[in-house]
Every structure is written in C-alpha cells, then in structure tokens.
C-alpha cells in the first residue's frame, strides 16, 4: 500500500502513468478494432492477431537494418501485411470460415505458432527495436517524460482508425463488408461476393495489425513470442466493448493501457499479465450475468 500513498503524495506520477497508459492504449485499441472487424464480418476469432502485430514490427526492424527510417515502413508494412492476410485467407481461413467456432480458434492458433517460429528462425529470439531517433519531451519540471515517438504514434493510430472508418462508411467495398457482417446470406442474394469480402476483411485486419506493429517496434520492444500478449489484450478489449462498437473499442483500449500501468505500479510488475487475463475473466462473467438476466426476461 506504500505504492498508493506514493501516488497521493506525488500527483505527477499519476500523470506519467496515465499518459504512458493512454498513449500505448491507442495502439491496443487499433489492434482490437482489427480483431472486432474480422470477428464481426467473418466470425473468425483470430488468435494470431498479436503475431501479425509482431510481423509488422519486424518489417520496420528489417528496414532500419537497411538504413531506412521506420516511419517509411508504415506503408510498406500495410501493403505487405495486406498481401499476407490475403494469402492466409486463401490458404487456411476460407476452409474454417463456415466451420464451428472452435475450429477457427485452433487454426489461427496454428498460424500463430508458425509465425512466431519463423520470426524466431529469421530474426532470433532477442528483443529488437526500430529506433526512430526522435527526441524525448520533458514536462512539469522533468516530472513527466514522454518520448515524442509515443505522441506521434498515438495520433497515427487515431488517423489510421479514422481512415478505416471512412473506408467502411464511404467506399463500395466498405459498404459490402458492412452488409455482409449484418447478414451474409442477404448480402449474397444482393450479389455481393462474400468470399471476396471475407478475404478483404481478413487482409485489411492484417494490414491494421502490421501498422500497429510498426508503431510498437518504435515505442516498445519486439520479440517473436511477445505477440500472444497483444492477442490477449485485443480479446479483452473486444469482449469488453462488444462487436461493432468503435467508440467502445477506443475507450476500452485506452482504459486497458492505463489500467495496466496503474495496476503494475500498485501491485507490482509481476501482476501485469495476471491483471489483463483476470480482467478478461471478470468481463466474461459480467457478460454472462447480463445474458442470464436477459434470458430470465425472455422467459
């Protein structure tokens, strides 16, 4: 409890934790939004979500090795990951789209393992970073330090989300995707090629993850096996916010980022992972209670 009194004694710490949490939470939200998109449209629960993020990160890392600034990796990662997502859909996911729910979990789990191991074989298990070379901002008499890249990444994440939203609202394809997610059969009758819609959605999600990975590699560190924790976070956020609820996803993402910071400050860093999965369980149980209440009403 010393840690709590620390927080009340030095309020600037709260600001630091909150800022750190919110800035990174925006990227969690971006990844979760991709998951919600795929989940809502194709009903595939992508356990390889975090590993797609790591792939994006390694694309940025590989480009820094070639002397290219990681910012330029953003479009490259988006294009490459879109192609990769398309490929994965055409080889694996199309086989499991209409299968039972558990199948998609296992298939994407298999993809996650293969991606992790290939990254490990190519880049080694050491943590890597893509150095952006941006400065570090100091505020409130040095009580608050924020590296500029975090701020830039925050706004980039929001901009990317905005682009995706506009695409969904305005473009023909976006409308087809939304129609399919509402009722795939009706969409098919209306002449929408749902298979193509699924493929685009899955590829779009991979591209979103890739972009998030580029940002992560500049802010934190990447490692072939770190993907799993991003997958878990994405599931927590989507389960908490519900599908097709973009404001909810953003709020839950920011909230999770802040909660992780405060939680591990107060309880100790060893509980960071446990906080996230514990939260997942709590949310699931709350949903369950809500549902059972709903069932009683129906009765």
């Amino acid at each position, binding site marked *: 409890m010393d840690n709590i009194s620390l927080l009340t004694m030095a309020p600037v710490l709260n600001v630091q934790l909150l800022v750190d949490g919110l800035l990174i939470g925006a990227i969690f939200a971006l990844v979760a939004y991709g998951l919600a998109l795929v989940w809502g449209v194709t009903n595939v629960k992508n356990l390889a979500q975090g590993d797609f993020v790591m792939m994006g990160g390694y694309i940025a890392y590989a480009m820094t090795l070639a002397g290219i600034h990681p910012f330029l990796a953003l479009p490259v990662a988006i294009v490459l990951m879109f192609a990769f997502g398309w490929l994965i859909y055409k080889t694996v996911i199309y086989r499991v789209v209409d299968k039972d729910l558990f199948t998609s*979990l296992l298939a994407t789990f298999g993809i996650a393992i293969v991606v992790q191991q290939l990254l490990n*074989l190519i880049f080694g298990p050491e943590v890597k970073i893509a150095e952006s070379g941006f400065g570090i901002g100091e505020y409130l008499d040095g009580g608050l330090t924020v590296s500029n890249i975090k701020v830039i990444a925050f706004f980039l994440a929001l901009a990317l989300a905005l682009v995706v939203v506009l695409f969904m609202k305005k473009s023909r394809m976006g409308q087809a995707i939304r129609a399919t997610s509402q009722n795939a059969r009706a969409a098919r009758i209306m002449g929408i090629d749902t298979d193509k819609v699924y493929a685009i959605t899955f590829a779009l999600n991979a591209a979103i993850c890739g972009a998030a990975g580029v940002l992560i590699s500049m802010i934190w560190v990447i490692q072939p096996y770190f993907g799993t924790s991003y997958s878990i976070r994405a599931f927590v956020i989507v389960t908490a916010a519900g599908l097709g609820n973009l404001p909810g996803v953003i709020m839950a993402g920011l909230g999770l980022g802040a909660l992780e910071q405060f939680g591990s400050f107060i309880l100790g860093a060893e509980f960071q992972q446990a906080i996230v999965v514990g939260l997942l369980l709590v949310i699931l149980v709350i949903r369950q209670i809500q549902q059972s209440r709903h069932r009683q009403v129906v009765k």
Partner: protein
Amino acid sequence: MRLSQNSIALYVVVIALGFLASLLFPNELAQISGLVIVVVLIQTWILANKYMSVGQRAFVLYAVVIICGIAAPFAFPNYVTQIAILWLMILFALTWDMMGGQMGYNSLGNIIFFGVGMYASAIVQIGLYYDVAQYTSHAGAVKVQYDWFQYVFGMGLGLIAAAISAVVVAVVLGRVVFGLRGPYFAIGTLGAAIAAGELVGAWDYVGGGGGITMPTFPGSGDERSLFFYFALFGLALFTFAFLKWLYSRRYALAVNAIRDDEDKAEAMGIHTLRYKTVAWAMSAFLLGMSGAVFGNMSGFVEPLEVAFPTITFGIFMVLMALLGGKGTLWGPVLGAVVFHIIKELTWTYFLGWQWVALGMLIIINVAYFQQGILGWAQEKWPDFFGLTVDESDTREAAADASGEASK
C-alpha cells in the same frame, strides 16, 4: 479352428521367448526382440480376428495392450521415459475429450488441473517433513532426502491432495465459466489457465517463479524410470477403463445430448449444470493425479513451463483428441500415439524447425483434416462402421434418444 488355436499357442510361445531374450540382452538385441514381439502380436491379432468371437476378440485386444504396456519398459529399456510420456499424452487426450468431444465444451484450460495437482502434491510432500515457506525461500538450499517409506507415503498423500484440490478447483471454476458458450468458453478457460500460471508465479510461499525442487527419488536411476513409468501407465489404463465403463452408462447419453443441443437437453429435464460440473470434476481428478506424478518425475516444479504449460501440453491435449477423432473412445488414444511419434521424430530430425512443423500440423489438421483419423476412416470405409465401434453406436444411440425424445 484347431489350426488357428495351435498357431495362437505357437505365437504365445514366441512372444514369451522374445520377452525372455529382451531380459537377457538389454541393448540392440532387446530392441530386435521387441520388434519381433510387436510383429507377432499383430499376427496374433489378425488370426484372433478371423477365428474368435467378438467378446473374445475384445478380451484379446485389451490383454495385448496391457501386456505391451507391461513389457514395453523391459523390451525398450532405453525408451522408458518416452513411452511413459506417451501414456501421459493418452491420458491428456482422453480427459480432454470427456468435455470437448463428448459434451461439446471445448476447454483450452484443462491444464489448470494438471498444474494444481502438481503444486498440491509438491506442497504436501515437502510440507510433511519440512516448512514449505522456509524451504522455498532458501531457493532449494535445503536438501530433501527421503527414505523409501517417506517418499512413497508422501507421494501417496500427495496424489490424494492433488486429486482433491483439482476437483475443488474444477467445481469452483465451473461455477464461473460454465455459463459461457462456444468460443467464449474456450477463451475464458484459456484466460483462466494463463492467469493460474501467472498467479502461482507471484505466490512466494511456493517459490514463485523460482519453482520447487521435488524430493529426490530414493532408488537408482533405472528404478526411478520404471517407478514413474508404471505410475503413468496405471493412471492411463485406469482412465481408459473408467471411461469405457462410464460411456456405457446413461451418463454418456446425457452429456451427448448436451453437446447436440444444450437447451433441448435442459428442457428434457437433464440437469445440465450438474452434468457439466461432474464431467469437469472427473477429468480434473485424473489430470490432477497425473500432474502430481509428472511433477515428481520432472523433479523440478516451476509455474509457467512445468506446471501450467498452456501453449504446449494445454494445446497438445486438444490437438491429439482432434487428430484422432473427438467424441470417441479410441480416437483420442490413436491421436495421442500418432501425435507423440510425429513429435518425437520431428524433434529428432527437424532440429530448430520442429515447432514450425507442429504449427503446420495443427493448421492442416483443423483446416483440411477436421474429422480426425477415426472420422476419416469412417468416411473411407463406411461399411465397417455399420456394426462397429461401440462409441459411435452410443453416439448414434444418444442422437436417436434425444431425437425421439424431442419428437
């Protein structure tokens, strides 16, 4: 008829000789004689198949499996641990199938019971003669030397504690997660398994992430291998026999009805929550004991990789059941055997790439080969299955029963 009986007798003699040879020559010769035994057993089985009644055949089959199980560590003395792990894998696949296959509740977190059992027995075994907190806080600096009585007595108590605590966890956790349906159940149980590993890792009393060194086995190296081999073999055998009995009861009809349509099953008056809890508790009971044995076998218990290996053992059990064909009795057994052999071979010959191979296996399994080996065979030779595998009979019977009832 007489001819076949004679030849069976002949084969039995050959088996006995091969067995004897394997005892006399423990190395390469033993392996060759082991192979001879296997070939002869297959021949015996084919013959038995031709000339024996159904009941006799079943008896011979089980006798053969049991004899193989008992003879294996002597026939292949260098592979004792690998075969012991095979029995563990069979137990994993069978217990997962109790929920995932028979009831349609696909848990990704059954590994919790394995870990809980392992830690419960570790605490009991060390706590019998030492102060656990003191033991772990010295990071293993206290040496635990048990004599035979202390060791066996401690492990016996440890097994009981493991089974009880795993069942308690299953009942409590079941209350929380059984309301979740479909993918939420899978995600919820996966989360619970990861949380369990993390929380035990943060629990200083049991050594946290530093783990616990288990008491050393009082006998020699070979005695130790055999001891744990037979412990795991016995557990797996018990599990199989128990499930065979269980699946012939009304219980099987009820859980299969839950799998087919839970709401209808409930409407039929099946107390679904009770069945779910009982099924989970039973698989927890078996997994908890296997965890206790495996913890002692490893000699070193540690939360993330030995006790709660969610993404290795935890996923293997699902994969093996799916590979063999879920919802059957023999499917998980077959899946476990095939999986274990593939795994051992890739680990030997694809050094560094074994995990890629495993991931590909999962993808191919679920995307292209979803019905499993037994399911595939069922499609390939449907005529065999008109009167065959009793599990599929019970499943059909269950389907009929629920179908009729709903009419």
